[in-house]
């Protein structure tokens, strides 16, 4: 059987992608459109909502409906779409700056409301588009253009926040694990209620360059080593958990979603 390519969802004329060499966004976009194809999503029944940032430019390549919004507010716009047109598949593409830093409050409340949206948050640990500044997910003590002697603040864990706030589905993948990522996005879209797929992704141009991982290979290796399957992670002693994160399906539950409760 031929594998899904997702090509029918892409504006081929917009290729090649504008993202930097070594960026993970192309892999995530590939996983997204393959997931669309395997689920048989119809373009006219699917809306992609984006905010501002490198990953927010993914809608430049998509033939689905798309609403390009403002920085941090994509989930609020998407909430409006889903409330009025609950039949649509609404997929919200945000980066870590967009999704959980400037847009943190919307993220919290979309999960609490458990509205049937799928958020794909590409976490590259910095503000890539504006040139590599510190974001809410930049690990403590890591370097960015605005934390040149190391980040004095702690990082946010988007999955933990979504889980605590009431999301029905929470998963974490990486750009290194493209196949698994596609499967997670499929589960997330299929699941009723708020779904989050956080994708740990390389940014060799900015984040990597400032943190001794200036090649795409170095960043992918870093992601591969950090990513530990949930079951293995749970068996680790606390000190061993330092410096790695669990990947896979972290939360899956069936609390009634916003449209069902309304």
């Amino acid at each position, binding site marked *: 059987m031929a594998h899904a390519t997702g090509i029918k969802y892409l504006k081929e004329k917009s290729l090649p992608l504008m993202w930097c060499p070594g960026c993970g966004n192309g892999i995530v976009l590939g996983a997204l459109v393959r997931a669309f194809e395997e689920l048989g999503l119809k373009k006219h029944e699917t809306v992609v909502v984006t905010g501002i940032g490198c990953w927010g430019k993914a809608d430049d390549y998509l033939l689905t409906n798309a609403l390009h919004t403002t920085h941090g507010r994509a989930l609020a716009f998407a909430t409006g779409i889903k409330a009025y047109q609950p039949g649509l598949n609404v997929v919200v593409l945000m980066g870590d700056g967009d999704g959980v830093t400037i847009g943190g409050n919307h993220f919290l409340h979309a999960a609490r409301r458990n509205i049937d949206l799928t958020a794909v948050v590409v976490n590259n640990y910095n503000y890539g*588009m504006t040139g590599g*500044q510190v974001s809410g997910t930049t690990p403590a003590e890591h370097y960015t253009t605005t934390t040149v*002697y190391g980040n004095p603040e702690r990082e946010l864990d988007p999955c933990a926040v979504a889980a605590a706030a009431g999301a029905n589905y929470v998963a974490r993948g990486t750009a290194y694990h493209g196949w698994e990522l596609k499967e997670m996005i499929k589960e997330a879209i299929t699941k009723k209620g708020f779904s989050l797929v956080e994708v740990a992704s390389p940014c060799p141009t900015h984040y990597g360059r400032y943190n001794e991982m200036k090649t795409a290979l170095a960043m992918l290796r870093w992601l591969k080593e950090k990513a530990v399957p949930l079951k293995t992670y749970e068996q680790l002693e606390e000190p061993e958990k330092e410096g790695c994160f669990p990947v896979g399906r972290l939360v899956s539950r069936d609390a009634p979603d916003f449209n069902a409760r309304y």
Partner: protein
Amino acid sequence: MPRILAIVGTDAAAEAMRQIDPEVVAVYPITPQTAVVEKFAEYVADGVVNTEMINVESEHSAMSACIGAAAAGGRVMTATSSQGLALMWEELYVAAGLRLPIVMTNVNRSLSAPINIHCDHSDSMGARDSGWIQLYSENAQELYDNLLQAVRIAEHPEVRLPVMVCVDGFIISHAIDRVEVLDDDRARAFLGDYVSLPGYSLLDAAQPVSIGMFDGLYGYYYEAKRAQEEAMARALTVIKEIGEEYRQVSGRGYGFWEEYGLEGAETCVVALNSACGTIRSRLKEWRARGAKIGLLKLRVFRPWPGEELARRLAEFKTVAVFDRAVTLAGGKGGPLCGEIAATLYGQAHRPRLVNYVYGLGGRDLTQALVDQALEELAAMPAVPEPMLPVRYLGLHA
């Protein structure tokens, strides 16, 4: 000895911030302002300033943190652009209403939608009634000079208002310019120490105060707003005084506006920011050919220097206003022209007023487009007519 640097506009802002050495800077990155905070972050990391820099999670938080720090008695600065300024909206009014002397660089950029990262003045023009003083800068030199003066204007006991210093995104912010900076001792002597007025600091343990409280239905809100207006009016005098004092220190004086070729002119072009460079370069040629036309580059938009401006503009037969923003009121033109029209209303002689909208979303104002406007102005009949409809320079069909 002043130093002469070849630096981009954003570095000129960061250099001014280094010399000002504010106690707190709360910022959030946004194109094209970001390079200001990046450069300043280096100064913080290198320990050349004593600033506490907070990388907050949004511009709304940036302005909120600035308000908190300023209310606590600190000298406070930030920088933003476009959507960032828009996100600060609510807090802009609070900063002005609480009379906090915050100084901010606004690197002018258009507002969404559709998204566009390039220059126009929609952002700061939208904030024109927020109670902030607005100074406009043609180039990196003026940006630097305006920022130093802004601190003095904002903190002046007769004023106590926040100041926004505007400069064109990319055209100036990302282009290398010749900038003459004061040596640090001279700059710091000009700036002086920030003295928090009694009653204005939350951190006055001997005399605690509450600020911004609900005034009740029959309270002092109305009076507070009127007081803000009066402070704005007093700022006109202060801006002039400080512009003159800056001339003594730097050799570069500043008033409400700068004139080029207006002696004996019949037509006056009014514009803000970097467009003035392009317009001036064309006027040089036109005037050499004998055209009676000059330029008034407005620096101070808030407070509005209406009385003086009206007197000056009434001396011309035609006033052509270049606007890098539109009011979206159905073809009424730009905000600068609207202000000038209102200002001229009370004059016995009202010049013919022509409004050129240009450069929205970074559309280039080329020399050819300036010529197009100048040719049209030159061909207008001598007999004044009512205000002409708005022209859109460089708009594609």
